[in-house]
């Protein structure tokens, strides 16, 4: 109990005094997770929509694989990307290991399946509703994909936010490919891990509270936007 109370006051102090080290960590966390969310959306939304509408051999196994990949352990993804980006690995010459770029790559790999699988479900449900009408209107496969993506945009926003939530809260992938380097690749989750292992639990929990507050605020904003959109557009 004491730790909790202390943590709340630590968290409050961090937010109000804008400790420069904490601000840098928060900014990097947001930068990395937002960037990987955008990248995953760019890849995952069209991919999910294409699988939803397309009919091709192996579609069933692909859907199963995407759904299963939603539950990929972050630490496994981190290890795989680490082996890929290490100097001893195939992409080593790019020198990306232990940089924020590596963290973006790892998080993108982690959440693309999530975005694609959920998008597939949403677009497929919409496709069932619209399929005959769109075919009657001679809509091509590409045109239908774009139409459905736009039509389900508010549900897809929820999907993208789910992706962001997962990216912002994972530690396994970024700690392995980033190395938790002070000032360079230390984000909120890895800082929490470090402070915990240093035994500074109030600080760790304080950072945790800041992280939860950030993610919750973002989701709240999105919820309000969805409600507004539903009222306006039906």
């Amino acid at each position, binding site marked *: 109990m004491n730790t909790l109370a202390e943590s709340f006051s630590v968290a409050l102090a961090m937010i109000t005094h804008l400790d420069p080290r904490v601000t840098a960590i928060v900014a990097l966390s*947001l*930068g*990395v997770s*937002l*960037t990987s969310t*955008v990248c995953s959306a760019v890849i995952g939304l069209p991919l999910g929509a294409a699988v939803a509408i397309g009919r091709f051999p192996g579609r069933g196994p692909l859907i199963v694989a995407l759904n299963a990949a939603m539950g990929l352990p972050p630490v496994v993804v981190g290890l795989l990307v680490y082996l890929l980006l*290490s*100097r*001893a*690995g195939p992409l*080593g*010459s790019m*020198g990306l*290991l*232990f*940089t*924020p*770029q590596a963290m*973006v790559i790892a998080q993108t790999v982690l959440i693309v399946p999530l975005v694609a699988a959920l998008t597939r479900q949403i677009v497929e449900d919409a496709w069932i509703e619209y399929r005959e009408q769109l075919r009657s209107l001679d809509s091509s496969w590409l045109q239908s994909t774009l139409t459905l993506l736009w039509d389900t945009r508010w549900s897809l926003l929820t999907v993208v936010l789910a992706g962001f939530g997962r990216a912002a809260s994972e530690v396994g992938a970024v700690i392995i490919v980033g*190395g*938790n*380097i*002070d000032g*360079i690749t230390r984000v909120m989750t890895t800082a929490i891990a*470090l402070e*915990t*292992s*240093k*035994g*500074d*639990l109030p600080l760790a929990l304080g950072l945790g509270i800041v992280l939860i507050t950030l993610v919750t605020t973002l989701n709240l904003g999105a919820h309000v936007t969805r409600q507004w959109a539903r009222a306006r557009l039906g």
Partner: protein
Amino acid sequence: MTKLFRRLTGAFACLLLAAAALAQQPFIVVASTTSTEQSGLFPQLLPAFEKDTGINVRVVAVGTGQALDIGRRGDADVVFVHDKTAELKWLAEGEGVRRYPVMYNDFVLVGPASDPARVKGSKDITTALKAIADAKAPFVSRADKSGTHAAELRLWKDAGVDIDTAKGPWYRETGSGMGAALNTASELNAYILADRGTWLNFKNRGELGIAVEGDKRLFNQYGVMLVNPDKHPNVKKELGQKFIDWLVSPRGQAVIAAYKIGGEQLFFPNAGTDS
């Protein structure tokens, strides 16, 4: 919708610019250990080095075994660990250039206030460990191929305890860094071997305190090595060597000696000796 898009591209652009800015300043990657990081030495040491040379040092802190592996893969320029046997083996494999002793500190045996094995105040680590094994008192081991873990195993051997056969439910192997293992020991009220630096900096002590210290066998030597640039052409050999030279220079050694927690010096510079 476009406003959100603009904000996102703005954040993305900032990230790219920041990355570009980071790339401008010369830097090296040093693979070091969790105990060195968690002792709090680096925030003292590295800014001084950067002030003197303008080189930014990026420390990846993992267990000694992993640090040496990072060096083996060429993902770091310099390796700074504390397991002489493993370091020499690593050199023998051709992974590094030369080993420079830098500093030493010592390990301490930390234990619960209740002291079930009755070892508190002893100056003999091997008899203490034997007593713990005989009493089957709770003991936490890092079990992660770190320098600390290697030292612990050596001490069990010196104590005449075959830990592989003696281990039981009393011997908890966590496979984690020093701080995390200390957290576990604090929770379980167990004995644990820790480096003095991490212990002094550790805040979640619970009922733990130092049980055994001062034995010469608890001596913990740190060494620094440049990763072999012949094997890994990407290694920044000049910058890396500058770091090594600075560490063993009078200036670097003075900065190391100046680091104190609660008035107590943590690390004792001994560059140039045969350690």
